[in-house]
């Protein structure tokens, strides 16, 4: 009888307490629901992450590529102890956050991907992730890095994270920052919000299915624009292309 190789390759997840869903009002007056998703919902998420691979701004491409890999690895059992939370507004996907546990005492924050911008949804979902590690799983600290300046301002500066530079982070091997329980307690009143329990009809709507994001970040209208400065110093091809698209449409 041959060895079942899959059994060797597949990590054994530690049991993690589930994240209790919560809800909150965002600036637009709409209601955001943050809840944990299980493996079955991952393919739907992949569908909505994939287009962001091509958004070459604010590091959406890098973050989307890594989130895609992490979600796929979770779905196909190639990542140990990972969890995924989503933020939804009216069922529509607004943000994805994920992370994993390194040990019972230490968590590793992976990514925060906002699919709707301008309402601090990413910040709310990041806070929910920290709440999961510290309050729900009872860990002492979470290792964090930022890949974008927006992330740096949000996490390192707003939470006043400690430097834990001797520990490389799993994302890119760069020096880690660390959220400790004490720092989280200090941020709790201003940054960590949300109400529980989620009204049953609201939760049912969120769980009924992850609808596509309503206004996701999109690549620039002109696909070559981002690379243009480097490769097309004359700009001829682009002017022609854009001239057709925009002048005829009559607006920019």
């Amino acid at each position: 009888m041959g060895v079942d190789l899959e059994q060797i390759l597949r990590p054994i997840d530690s049991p993690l307490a589930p994240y209790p869903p919560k809800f909150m009002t965002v600036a637009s007056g709409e209601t955001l629901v943050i809840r944990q998703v299980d493996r079955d919902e991952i393919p739907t998420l992949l569908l909505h992450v994939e287009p962001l691979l091509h958004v070459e701004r604010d590091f959406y491409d890098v973050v989307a590529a890594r989130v895609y890999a992490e979600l796929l690895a979770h779905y196909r059992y190639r990542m140990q102890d990972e969890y995924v939370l989503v933020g939804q507004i009216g069922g529509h996907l607004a943000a994805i956050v994920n992370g994993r546990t390194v040990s019972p005492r230490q968590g590793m924050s992976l990514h925060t991907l906002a699919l709707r911008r301008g309402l601090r949804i990413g910040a709310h979902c990041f806070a929910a992730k920290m709440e999961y590690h510290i309050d729900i799983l009872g860990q002492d600290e979470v290792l964090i890095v930022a890949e974008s300046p927006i992330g740096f301002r949000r996490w390192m500066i707003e939470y006043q994270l400690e430097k834990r530079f001797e520990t490389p982070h799993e994302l890119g091997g760069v020096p880690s920052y660390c959220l400790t329980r004490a720092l989280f307690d200090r941020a709790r009143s201003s940054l960590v919000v949300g109400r529980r329990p989620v009204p049953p009809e609201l939760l049912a709507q969120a769980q009924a299915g992850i609808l596509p994001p309503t206004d996701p970040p999109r690549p620039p209208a002109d696909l070559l624009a981002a690379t243009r400065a480097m490769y097309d110093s004359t700009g001829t091809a682009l002017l022609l292309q854009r001239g057709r698209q925009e002048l005829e449409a009559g607006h920019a």
Partner: protein
Amino acid sequence: MERQIHAYACRRCGALHYPFRMVCRECGENGPHEFDPVPLPKEGTLLTFTFVHNLPAEYEVARLGLGVVELSNGLRMLGQLDIADPKLGMKVVGEVEVVRREAYARRYGMVFRAA
């Protein structure tokens, strides 16, 4: 040595200026640079203040206190606040300290604390 920030007294009319300008705004009669530096007093009254949360990249703090102080000689100046819970009208006293680091340069300015 105690550091100072200077106001400038017009040699013609005596008007005090802070910050520096080349021609006196009061009399307009002086030639360029006809001013005598006068150390600014360090005690005063807090006129208004804020805590800034979105700071330029050099600052690695979550928020920075800034306030306008009316000094004991009637001039006003902006300074950083090292006061946890400022109140309009409170008495403050300043010290000249590093207020900004740009690469290897250190900029000195007034930092006010509760008197």
